[in-house]
């Protein structure tokens, strides 16, 4: 009050005293449903500033975030991009593992459903280096009791047979190799004929007479006569039939995905296998039955065929037991 002229002091005093009493009033009064008057006034007085302040601060914060606080954004962006790449790789790996798990589950189920048959799962670690042959390399070898001429399959169908065995690896000749072959028969007519490779993705069924009824889409299964593969394992499906002289030219799409194998099953026995207990006798193809023994012995599984007992490996090309015997003779 020292700096205020004396004639104005009373005015200021009046204002102060009245104001104090107004506040006193406000402290006592309650408005209906609005609480004490002082609270109503205070809120009413401050809320516009609070709103304005909040609005302004919100804008400032937005501006700061979007325009000024971007110094770390580039680094964070880079880091997030790296993390995103890592996550993408992980997702791909997980997807791959999931697919692998599905495949392994399939193998396991197959194994369980044929528990009497000794099997060994193996992983494909390499394929043939050139196009001249169709082979794959497995990560199992003689230490895992794999022997030459053992059959190799997948749950989808026949793959081929072991042609070389090393300590920890083994080499498998695929069905598609031109020197490969397997004892087979038509799923419906039960006509037997060896199926071999032709050096291309499709297989060839060679000795079906023109008189035999064969249709496109018909299943081809193992006949079991080669003493390597059990009977009725799927080999493939007929895709093309052409009349020939004296045999039809039949092309088959393999059931097993021979071009993208990752895991396979090795049949750990050289004894004849019987997956099914069927007593049904396969009807031998007349043409194959009349095929010269020398020709039958010569064909498809080159080099690895026609081995007499005790190794119970017969030529995959041998369509019948009669022919198998004949196939052994030339050796």
């Amino acid at each position, binding site marked *: 009050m020292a700096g205020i002229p004396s004639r104005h002091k*009373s005015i200021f005093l*009046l204002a102060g*005293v009245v104001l104090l*009493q*107004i506040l006193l009033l406000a402290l006592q009064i309650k408005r209906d449903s609005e609480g004490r008057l002082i609270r109503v006034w205070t809120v009413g007085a401050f809320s516009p500033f609070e709103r304005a302040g909040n609005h302004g601060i919100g804008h400032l914060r937005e501006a700061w975030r979007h325009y000024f606080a971007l110094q770390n954004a580039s680094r964070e962006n880079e880091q997030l991009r790296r993390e995103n790449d890592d996550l993408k790789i992980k997702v791909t790996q997980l997807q791959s593992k999931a697919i692998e798990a599905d495949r392994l589950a399939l193998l396991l189920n197959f194994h369980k459903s044929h528990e009497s048959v000794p099997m060994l799962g193996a992983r494909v670690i390499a394929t043939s280096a050139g196009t001249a042959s169709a082979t794959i390399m497995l990560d199992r070898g003689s230490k895992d009791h794999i022997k030459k001429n053992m059959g190799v399959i997948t749950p989808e169908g026949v793959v081929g047979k072991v042609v070389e065995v090393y300590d920890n690896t083994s080499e498998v000749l695929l069905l598609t190799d031109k020197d490969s072959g397997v004892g087979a028969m038509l799923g419906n007519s039960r006509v037997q004929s060896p199926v071999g490779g032709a050096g291309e993705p499709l297989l060839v069924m060679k000795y079906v007479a023109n008189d035999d009824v064969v249709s496109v889409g018909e299943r081809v299964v193992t006949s079991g006569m080669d003493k390597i593969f059990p009977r009725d394992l799927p080999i493939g499906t007929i895709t093309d039939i052409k009349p020939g002289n004296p045999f039809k030219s039949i092309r088959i799409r393999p059931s097993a995905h021979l071009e993208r194998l990752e895991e396979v099953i090795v049949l750990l026995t050289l004894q004849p296998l019987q997956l099914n207990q069927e007593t049904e006798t396969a009807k031998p193809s007349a043409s194959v039955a009349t095929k010269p023994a020398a020709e039958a012995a010569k064909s498809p599984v080159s080099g690895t065929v026609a081995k007499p007992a005790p190794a119970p490996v017969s030529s995959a090309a041998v369509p019948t037991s009669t022919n198998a015997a004949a196939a052994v003779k030339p050796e």
Partner: protein
Amino acid sequence: MNDAFDIRNMESHIEVHKFRGGAIVGATLLALMFQAFVPVYFAKAAMIDLPLLITIYFGLSRRNPSTGLLLGMIIGLLQDSLSGPTVPLGLYGIAKTVIGYLASSIGARLDTEHPAARFALTIIFFGLHQGIVLLTRRILLAQSSVWFTMHLAAAAVVNAIVAVFLFALLDHLRKS
């Protein structure tokens, strides 16, 4: 400049009265007691606002705005306190603070010793007092009140008449 000089000259001729010890306090307390108790027995006595008249009288006599407003504030707050829970502290306090200030300010510039002047000033201050109370009720307390009634007009006149006699009586409390 001459006008200002004249006013100062005029003010210098207005006497500032002093009262005997305890006169202000005693008169105030008596007025409050009267206001609180007499209407219980004489309902019409509620029309007379003795605390207001005391505020006006001492304001006009002391002629010091600061003293006048503080005295008005104290009397008003005491009246509020005695008016029951329905009257918030400050309702009469604000009104009598303003009246005390105005009475002191006017008393410093005008001769308020004449009964006619006292009568007129009391009517004016009574009306002003009621206006302030009404404004406070309406604005601060959100209570509805009528601006003017014949009862208020009659009360103003009655208070003015009472003031003429009361002020004459109170003049005896001045130091000679």
